[in-house]
């Protein structure tokens, strides 16, 4: 019965009901609160994490279904907050309230892993599952585009 899961390179036993979504395992059991609850139906993207590198809505993903898999949350995206997406978010001053931004960044991370040279439409298509009520879309779009360029050229910059 000892199922486990790897989160941000650390292994955890799954000691919760099988149907508990990964979101609540992260938030209430592990107290990793960077991943946010927004809608509970996979409609808003606030809960997005990477599942073996792929952007996944953790609010509708039973934790038992991802046993043995590797999860990356916003807390594990980079060691020092210096992932090109995080840097691009800072440079474009994207966040307002910031609540949706972890999900936006994780979704963009999954997307840019599969599309290294995205067009404007590609970004729209990839990011339209993530709602921002403050209205930071214009900056998100620019930040994703900026990060894509940096990642493609292998450039990394230190966060200030």
């Amino acid at each position, binding site marked *: 019965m000892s199922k486990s899961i790897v989160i941000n390179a650390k292994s955890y036993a799954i000691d919760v009901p099988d149907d508990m979504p990964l979101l609540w395992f992260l938030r209430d059991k592990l107290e990793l609160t960077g991943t946010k609850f*927004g809608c*509970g139906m996979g409609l808003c993207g606030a809960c997005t994490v990477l599942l073996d590198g792929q952007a996944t809505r953790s609010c509708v993903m039973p934790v038992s279904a991802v046993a043995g898999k590797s999860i990356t949350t916003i807390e594990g995206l980079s060691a020092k907050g210096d992932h090109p997406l995080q840097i691009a978010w800072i440079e474009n001053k994207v966040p307002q309230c910031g609540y949706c931004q972890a999900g936006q960044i994780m979704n963009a991370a999954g997307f840019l892993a599969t599309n290294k040279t995205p067009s404007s439409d590609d970004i729209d298509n990839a990011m339209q599952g993530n709602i921002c009520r403050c209205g930071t879309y214009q900056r998100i779009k620019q930040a994703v585009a900026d990060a894509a360029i940096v990642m493609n050229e292998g450039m990394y910059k230190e966060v200030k």
Partner: protein
Amino acid sequence: MNLFNESTAQLINESRRRFLKQSGVAAGGLVIGVVIPQHAMAKFTQGAEDATFNPNAFIHIAENGDTLIYCGRCEMGQGISTALPAAVADELEADWSRVTVLQADGNEEKFGSQATGGSASIRTMYIPMREAGAAAKEMLIAAAAKVWATSAANCKADNHFVINTLNQQKLSYGELASLAANSPVPAKPVLKTKAQFKYIGKDLARHNQGDIVQGKLTYGVDTKLPGLKYAAITHCPVLGGKLKSCDKSAALKMAGVLDVVEIPRFDIPFGSIGGVAVVADNTWTAQQALKLLKIEWDLGANQSYDTNAYKAMLVKNVENPAEVMVERGDVQKAFTDAAHVVKATYTGGHLSHSPMEPNASVVWVQKDSCEVWAATQSPADIQKVLGQYLKREPKDILVHVTMAGGAFGRKFKCDYVHEATVLSQKVNAPVQLTWSREEDMRTGYYHSINAQHIEASLDKSGNVTGWMHRIAFPPIASLFNPAQGKATKDDVAEIANHPFGIANLRSENGDAPAHTRIGWYRAVYAIFYGFAYGAFADELAHQAKQDTLSFLNKVYDNNKDPKDAEKVRRSKGVLALAAKQANWDKRGALPKNQGLGIAVHYSFNTYVAMAVLVEVNGDDIKVLEVNAAVDCGQVLNLDGATAQMEGAVVMGMSYSLRTEIVFKNGAVVNSNFHQYPVLRINEMPVVKVHFVENDEKATGLGEPGLGPFAPALSNAVFAASGKRYRDLPFTPLAI
């Protein structure tokens, strides 16, 4: 001016009066001219104890120079916790990189009014915050002058140091901290000139964005405490209903469930409307157990509320004579003498704030204490409500104000904190209550459903000679007085006070009893007043065969009342700027299916004009570009101000195009974002924001961007397609 503005202004005035009174009698304390009460200062005067310098409640400078600046106002993404502390730092001549901004706990004795709404924070706190910084700087300078045995006039402050201008000696703020605590407090600190600003008016990053992009910033919903229990709740779907019965047996048998608690309606504003909650050892279990409850509600008198029928009634009420509120000149004669009389009716639906962070809070009630962690726009109201509920002094309720994951007016009304309090008391543990998205959408304080009918007369030259404006909407005042079955006099004052120059005017107020909770929603009544004024002006211009921009300028120019001169000048100023930036004069060259619309609205003491460019193909409306022109006097943070306009466009697009809260059988039909389709990134237009440069007083920007957006959009669609949209949203989702 709306109710919210007035009450906020009143709060500030009261607090200022209290401060002035107290500062007159205080002995030995620090007296500086900020709107915070003097007696609260006393405890900060003995900074020497720990060698820190605490000249007032907002500033703390440690021995090593590390500086804390508190933000008394609540932060919900509008950027106030960057804008105000940066203004303090500017006057303090602090090095911004040495400053840490902290969100103040709820304490109006100490920080002045913390009620955050009405776009009032900058308007009311900009000068007091600068004075707080300037006073501290002068105290640091005085301390240094004493060390150097010279006069303060020979010293200047620069980037966390005081410099002796005679010999260039320097002392750091850290070195001066404990000495400055003994400096006399300047009676009237001298403020910097605009040319001397270092941070004010510049592009500043939000102080917390580094934490945000790493998932480190904690919101109300993220609070963790040892022994924390988790709760989920369901409410009576109809306002005024009561619990009839609740079979809890299946829920109580579920592993991890601790209790099922009935929460009765707490009949004061911002108290719970009543519901049933499950407390468990995690949120998921609580949510699942909630589904096992068998609940019967006695739905009460509002169960027939149906927004389709109600809106039709509002339309009928505005298309027939109603109570006359203001009459000036002779409207009837103006209509009789008119070359044309133009009539139009505008409507708008209920809206849910739907911030991305649903209502959530942690409360821990103990025998001698009550501690709250919550995203809130008004910690004092939490203290008031909980004080009343627990029969304790409001000041004994400790409210930790967390970052709010959006609020838009919803989190002014903290029913969710009251509910967590009931639960904590019941299970004798700290409880985190998180509303589901569905509860958030269905148990709101909604933006008012509304209808307006305007009739205006034009003379042969296209001048507006008469204006009859009839409104009907359930008012926010109904929250506090359920008998208030129509808009208040103040709510309707907008019409008589509008700066259009119209000699003959009548405002009328139609019946509109509330059947749900009506609340402040970002921009409040400016949403629909802005829509009606901006869209109707375009209709009049079209009838008068004039270009809308020239027509608007003429209507403003016809206002010769000296007390409106400023409003006329500044309204025309933003119109001209938006028109220029959007190439208004070249709109004739646009492709056939594109159109440019323009509108202007003054609200919350700020002027905004927007020019919206659209492309219309059949029913499909694509917003291509928005040029926003803003006159908010002195801009505090250029980047933050720009972001507020971008956000206004996004929120404006959501409610203009599609979103509406619908009631049937007394209950909200919408359940989650699939039935409340807010704007997504693929529809985001290019937004360009332009500011009028002037030396006017600084005013707020959280709300003023919304008023002009919907009318500019509607006018643009008309220009592109000849189709008028007079109802918000233009194309509601069928649910």
